[in-house]
């Protein structure tokens, strides 16, 4: 689960005009300091993190059994190798013997078992554990509080971990690359607010300082088992000003680009053009329906709201090339992406006819409609503004937007949602299950809209059990077709990430999932 921040937070800072007050470039030392812009993470506890902002810090400080390489293949991390039983139910991981926590204590197989039991414990309150560890035998008993130990996980010796699943899952290894499955020092993690002040991780960087609203600093961990970082430090300047101005004045080395600056950075005559890195990222932005209550428990009303939006116009005018219009659910780069999907056709008259034929009979009979989004201060993303405007223009319906705090939005949207919600999802691993099952299957804790269709659920379950890729993908394709036919959502856009990277920075290469391995980054002579 990697929920995306509604882009307005970043956009506000980029558009509000500039400032540079408190950010000064860090002095150079042997390996150099990488200066980045950032905002405060919501958590640095891997068991809790479910948002893309927190993840970017956590993956530098912690690590797990496996990780995804730049080709999105699962490769060993703390696990040097593993075997899978023929029935696909038992995984045996062999851990590297040279892995240490930042305090020098060696990592053992039992640390993973303890970390996962902690993550699944109701006392921890993880929303991500059921999704990412829930395939392991015995986790349900821990989730429910019936037990404290996950019987499906055994430390066979100090460096061998056996994991048993309840059913075979073709994507199980991908899930272990997610922060919820990372190893933590469970003794360290019992301290109050430990992740804010005193983190003992295993990643390539230690947390040196976190001053909320000001600065987050990472320091190289010299005893890291993998590629030891070249950088001495990474300094995130939190809320330090307008990103582009910080970049132009050399106070940060990398800058994310929003649509406001797209003309400048894509101009071949611009000084920034050669520093631009553009990546299509597997993310989906969509409008979700609360399918479980009126008026959107009526499929005709859902279809009408989808049909009343000229999404081509919205995406073209608002995003200005920084996103791709989404017609389906699975984004480019994820197996199963289907570029032949036509999507909903914009037809306001047909939309009104649909409402007339719905259980409401007329727009006048619809109850008030509220949409939930995240952020502060009442400024909302441009695509959302344009969408709500079109509902007014084309259906005559005033939709009120309720903007809730980002942390509530990230971690409590299921309870907080109104009739509609604006949502973003970045892939955690390259598998259609990460979208179709996680976001829309009955009972999934991240099925915010509570969409439910027996036929859909059956196809998703069958696809998950199917270990052969081709038939599995066919099942997912049929499921996506049902989902779109039921108008369980209004797809808005797939992601495009634009960043500027200073020429003296090498190795700053976001993976297709948007994660940068900062231990691979180097600062050359400026």
């Amino acid at each position, binding site marked *: 689960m990697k929920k995306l921040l509604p882009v307005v*937070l970043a956009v*506000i*800072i980029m*558009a*509000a*005009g*500039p*400032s*540079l007050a408190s950010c000064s470039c860090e002095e150079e030392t042997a390996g150099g300091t990488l200066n980045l812009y950032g*905002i405060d993470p919501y958590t640095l506890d891997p068991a809790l993190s479910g948002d893309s902002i927190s993840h970017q810090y956590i993956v530098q400080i912690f690590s797990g059994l496996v990780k995804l390489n730049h080709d999105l293949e699962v490769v060993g991390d703390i696990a040097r190798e593993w075997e899978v039983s023929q029935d696909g139910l038992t995984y045996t991981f062999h851990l590297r013997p040279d892995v240490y926590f930042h305090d020098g204590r060696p990592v053992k197989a039992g640390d993973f078992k303890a970390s996962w039991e902690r993550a699944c414990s109701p006392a921890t309150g993880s929303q991500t554990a059921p999704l990412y560890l829930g395939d392991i035998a015995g986790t349900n008993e821990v989730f429910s509080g019936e037990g404290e130990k996950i019987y499906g996980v055994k430390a066979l010796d100090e460096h061998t971990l056996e994991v048993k699943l309840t059913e075979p899952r073709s994507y199980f290894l991908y899930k272990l690359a997610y922060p919820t499955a990372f190893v933590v020092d469970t003794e360290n993690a019992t301290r109050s607010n430990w992740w804010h002040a005193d983190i003992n991780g295993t990643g390539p960087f230690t947390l040196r300082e976190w001053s909320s*609203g000001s600065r987050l600093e990472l320091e190289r961990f010299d005893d890291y088992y993998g590629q030891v970082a070249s950088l001495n430090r990474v300094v995130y300047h939190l*809320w330090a*000003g*307008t990103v*582009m*101005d910080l970049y*132009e*004045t050399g106070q940060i080395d990398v800058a994310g680009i929003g649509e*406001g*600056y*797209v*003309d*400048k*950075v*894509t*101009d071949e*005559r*611009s000084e920034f053009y050669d520093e631009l890195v553009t990546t299509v990222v597997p993310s989906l932005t969509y409008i979700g329906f609360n399918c479980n209550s009126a008026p959107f428990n009526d499929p005709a009303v859902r279809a009408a709201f989808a049909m009343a939006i000229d999404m081509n*116009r*919205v995406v*073209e*005018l*608002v995003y*200005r090339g920084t996103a791709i219009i989404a017609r389906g659910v699975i984004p480019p780069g994820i197996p199963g992406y289907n570029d032949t999907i036509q999507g909903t056709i914009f037809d306001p008259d047909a939309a009104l006819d649909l409402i007339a034929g719905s259980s409401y009979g007329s727009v006048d009979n619809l109850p008030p409609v509220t949409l939930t989004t995240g*952020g*502060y*201060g*009442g*400024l*909302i993303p*441009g695509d*959302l*503004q*344009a969408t*709500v*405007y079109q509902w007014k223009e084309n259906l005559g319906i*005033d*939709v*009120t*937007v*309720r*903007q*809730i*705090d980002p942390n*509530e939005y990230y971690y409590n949207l299921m309870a907080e949602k109104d009739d509609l919600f604006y949502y973003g999802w970045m892939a955690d691993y390259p598998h259609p299950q990460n979208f179709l099952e996680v976001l829309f299957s009955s009972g999934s804790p991240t099925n915010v809209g509570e969409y439910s269709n027996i036929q859909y659920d059956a196809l998703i379950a069958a696809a998950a059990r199917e270990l052969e890729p081709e038939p599995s993908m066919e099942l997912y394709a049929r499921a996506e077709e049902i989902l779109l036919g039921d108008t369980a959502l209004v797809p808005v856009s797939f992601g495009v990430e634009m960043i500027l990277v200073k020429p003296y920075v090498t190795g700053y290469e976001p993976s297709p999932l948007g994660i940068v391995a900062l231990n691979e980054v180097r600062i050359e002579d400026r």
Partner: protein
Amino acid sequence: MRVRVKGLTVILVAFVLALTVPSAMPANAQVDVETIASYAVVEYPDRINFTLELESREQITDIRLNYRVERDSFVDVVCESVAGYDADTKSASWTWDMYTTGNLPPGTVVEYWWKISTGSGNYHFTQPQKVAFDDSRYQWQEISEGNLSIYWYRGDLAFAGELMETARVALIQLEDDMGAYLARPVNIYIYGSSEDHQGAMLYVQEWAGGLAFTGYGVVAIGIAPSNIDWGKRAMVHELAHLVTHQMTNNPYNSIPVWLNEGISMYAEGEMEEFSESYLRRAAANNDLISVQSLASPFSSDADITYLSYAQSYSLVEYLISQHGSQKMGELLYTFSLGSTYDGAFMNVFGFDIDGLDTAWQAWVKEKYSASSAQRMAALPSFMAVLLAVLMASSAVKSCRKKRLAV
């Protein structure tokens, strides 16, 4: 024209409002929750602290602050934040940290109310209150005329009156030129210096002396009484932004930055000499910034920005002089409907942004022929350096207090 002193702090205002509203109006009359006090304290420009004090015989399970900012918007947005509740003090509070959003302009009104949930599943809403995000660090005076209000604290009434007259005339001129008058009231805050203005904004480039908050009908400028000539130009510039915004506002996108700034520069009157010198030099040296790049916010580098402003003026001058002001009106109207940049120009002028770049560059290079630059280049090197230094210092002096619209 009326004059009054606006010296009360927002703290006082907020308390007064709190005392005059009745206690919480329960959604369920059987539930006993009473508001003791509800108030908001502004610490301009950094934050607003909202506080609720209450009495309840029921267990409080959740308290939310709801608020809505008064500004132009295509969408009704109600914000909701979870307030920390302290059972010992029976109070809840929430702080709007403006660093997370950029600060509201001075005087912006925020309407707010509380939602209180209790253990029995009932909830209450308090009566809506309003707090103004006033910059109470200064003793503001106000003069008003029609929809126009000027707030200032340095200089005498004649100073403010001169600015008011400039603003009034500018709006008449803008109405004549652009066929638009401002539909909403405009509040102009005159800070007493560039430094005061800079200190009133969280995110502002150091060379910016004026800001137009277009969705709010607010202009904030730093004008020392000794610098009123510059100030009058700056005020016209910022007012033009408000007019342009009103003419082009649409739910999809903004017009190119150069067009917005160029119209405001053009409204000021003839281009100032220091600006023209940047343009002349860039034209002669083939260092003009592309029109495409100028569609984005200008650089943090002051020299590049001065050139950007000069080019913006020149582009608007080119469009009006070569294609007529009617076409300019059509262009703004096209943008108001929602259009891509290329689409709008193609529709109105028959060329896209690159086409404009080509045509305008030829025009501007012809206008600023190489001769003047050659004359400059022929100066003795000492003189050239001296001239550059003088020009740069002059430009910095002026432009540190100069314009940028949000």
